[in-house]
């Protein structure tokens, strides 16, 4: 006779599954990776002030991560509610679609994709909290009911994963067009979504199928006040993390463009006279014309922003400023910004000398936040050089 021993129900570990050392290292690695991806292209390697908003946002994301991870899911808490769990799953699915849709076939991630990936990280944390990381918990920390539930979740997730992979495989075979589509889908963002599904899909299924928790008993002890406070702070931080990019996107349209200080990039005066050249910005009146070149950076928005390096050169003689003879101004366009699309209307500046001898160089472009593409703003950058070589940048 074959008797099956009955496994003793294991006592479930109290509290949340704390992330282990591997989890912390993974978090640090992801943070470093995201930091490099986000900051290096945007900063051009050395422009620290321009990456401060991004760094600040990243810090906020990780503080939020830590805060959300520290909130204990209590019976009846909002994160444990079935509707909330399913909402998180739907948000993850939508985010994955967005990552694939916004990523380009190459290895470089666009700013919108990076933002969606950051959201994905947060949503994954929320999912982990909502399911108490039951899908990946060690065997010893789940009871029999939970083990059966998570095994069943994996069983259900498997065909879903197989269908997604199978669709990609079939698309790679059917025709040249579908193969091209597959390649696009499996670009940088698609690969990350594949990894997301590989590691998180069972947790998503678990969040959907897990029964609703029983309502808290009326005579149950109230949650500690500190726990309530932490949960509220976590909610506020999550809202901030999601809202800030949109607020900053509005800022592109609302905030006035600003320019950095004008830098005189003129070469030092030559020792040999008779050549057009160099000058100071000081505007000393001289008999022979003085020439100079200047540089500034115009920015629209803060955090979510676009920048345009402005280069101008001119000659002046105390009566009027003008473009150096024999020279024409080359095109200078707005650089692709962080979450900002730029439509350049006039990259090569128009140069007009007014009756008072002031030379005005004008660039025009339209900036539009990628997150709110229905908003846009026309930006006109004017560099005004007066007859004495004084330079101002107007936006």
């Amino acid at each position, binding site marked *: 006779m074959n008797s099956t021993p009955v496994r003793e129900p294991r006592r479930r570990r109290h509290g949340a599954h704390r992330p282990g050392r591997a989890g912390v290292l993974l978090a640090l690695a992801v943070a470093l990776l995201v930091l490099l991806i986000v900051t290096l292209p945007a900063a051009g390697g050395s422009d620290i002030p321009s990456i401060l908003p991004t760094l600040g946002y990243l810090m906020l994301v990780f503080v939020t991560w830590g805060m959300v991870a520290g909130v204990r899911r209590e019976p009846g808490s909002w994160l444990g509610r079935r509707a909330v769990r399913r909402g998180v799953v739907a948000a993850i699915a939508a985010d994955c679609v967005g990552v694939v849709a916004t990523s380009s076939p190459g290895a470089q991630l666009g700013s919108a994709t990076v933002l969606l990936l950051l959201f994905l990280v947060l949503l994954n944390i929320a999912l982990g909290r909502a399911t108490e990381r039951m899908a990946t918990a060690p065997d010893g920390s789940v009871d029999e009911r939970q083990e059966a539930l998570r095994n069943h979740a994996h069983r259900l997730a498997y065909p879903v994963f197989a269908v997604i992979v*199978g669709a990609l495989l079939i698309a790679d075979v059917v025709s040249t067009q579908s193969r091209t589509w597959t390649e696009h889908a499996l670009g940088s963002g698609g690969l990350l979504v594949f990894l997301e599904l590989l590691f998180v899909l069972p947790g998503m299924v678990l969040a959907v199928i897990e029964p609703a928790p029983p309502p808290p008993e009326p005579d149950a002890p109230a949650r500690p006040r500190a726990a309530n406070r932490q949960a509220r702070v976590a909610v506020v931080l999550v809202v901030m993390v999601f809202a800030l990019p949109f607020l900053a996107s509005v800022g592109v349209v609302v905030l006035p463009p600003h320019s950095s200080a004008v830098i005189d990039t003129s070469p030092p005066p030559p020792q040999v006279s008779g050549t057009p050249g160099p000058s100071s910005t000081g505007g000393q009146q001289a008999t022979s014309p003085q020439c100079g070149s200047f540089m500034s950076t115009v920015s629209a928005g803060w955090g979510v922003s676009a920048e345009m390096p402005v280069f101008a050169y001119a000659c002046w003689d105390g009566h009027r400023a003008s473009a150096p003879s024999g020279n024409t101004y080359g095109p200078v366009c707005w650089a692709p910004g962080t979450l900002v699309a730029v439509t350049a209307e006039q990259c090569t500046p128009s140069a007009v000398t007014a009756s008072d001898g002031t030379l005005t160089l004008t660039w025009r472009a339209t900036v539009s936040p990628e997150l709110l593409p229905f908003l846009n703003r026309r930006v006109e950058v004017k560099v005004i050089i007066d007859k004495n070589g004084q330079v101002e940048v107007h936006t």
Partner: protein
Amino acid sequence: MTRSLRRVAVVAVAAVTAVLASALPLHGFGIVVVVVLAGLDILLLQATGWLAFRRGSALDERQTALRDRAYRRGFRLIGLAVLLLGLVWFVSYVFVAQDATVSAGAGIDSGIAGRVLVVAAELVTMMATCVVAWREDGSPESDGVAAGAGQGRNGQWVAWLLLPAIVAAWLLAVAWGPPQSVARGSISIIGGGPASGWTCHEFGGGTMIGAEFGATVGLRAYVCWDGTDAFVWGDPAVPPPASLNHYFKPFTALEFDGANTLETGCGMDNLSDFASVGATTCTERIDAGGTMHYTVSARVSPLPFGIASREVSVALVVTRTGKVLEQP
């Protein structure tokens, strides 16, 4: 089948999958590897009583628990397998590419190779069954496999029909399936030619037979034009037109035979994992108007002795002004 034999079969599946995932050339015998893999899969499926694919209503509580646990472990193992197979590919690629001056197939973009598709399908469909077969925990459910294996034994031979079906489908696709065009690969050289007045552009592409499970005849040509003629540059086997003789004075034979030879190569980008590609010829014809007609022809053979083989041609036509009239 005993647990030891089942484990041997699982190890064999892993080894064959690793061969497919590696960069080792298959020389047209990929279908043999696939059939072997499918045979091992059928063995494992029968040894486990198709437990991973049976409906829940046909299983008792113990079998359901065993199956679901296998799926959980299998899901985790897929991630590990992807990493390990990626490592296998990298190591084998370094090994294979050691002597190669240029990577084969780099001029064309043929998508996910058929052998990788098989690996992906294998991981997704068979991992749970492999876990059931391995059953490393030796838990009290050990009779779950045996119980499943005993069911439906009468119809076991039906599964083996899958093997001739795979071969037939593959043969059908390679011998009669519509060819698919293959886009240009990652190599991209555009710019001036070796002489002033020349403009040059690298063209790549090809024709795929058997939709990733056959072979690809590739074309990679560095084409220059000078307003009088368009011509292929850089392939010693395809000499430039006589009208260009005056250009060659500044160039040494070494320059002609050396650096640029990598940019045009006859048969360099052929891919032949599941069918052999032979008799590759590359011909250039420049008509009276200076238009270049460059054609790569090859014979794709799924079976030995040229059985069911088909001729494949890839054409590139460029005018003397650089206008492309035809390309893969």
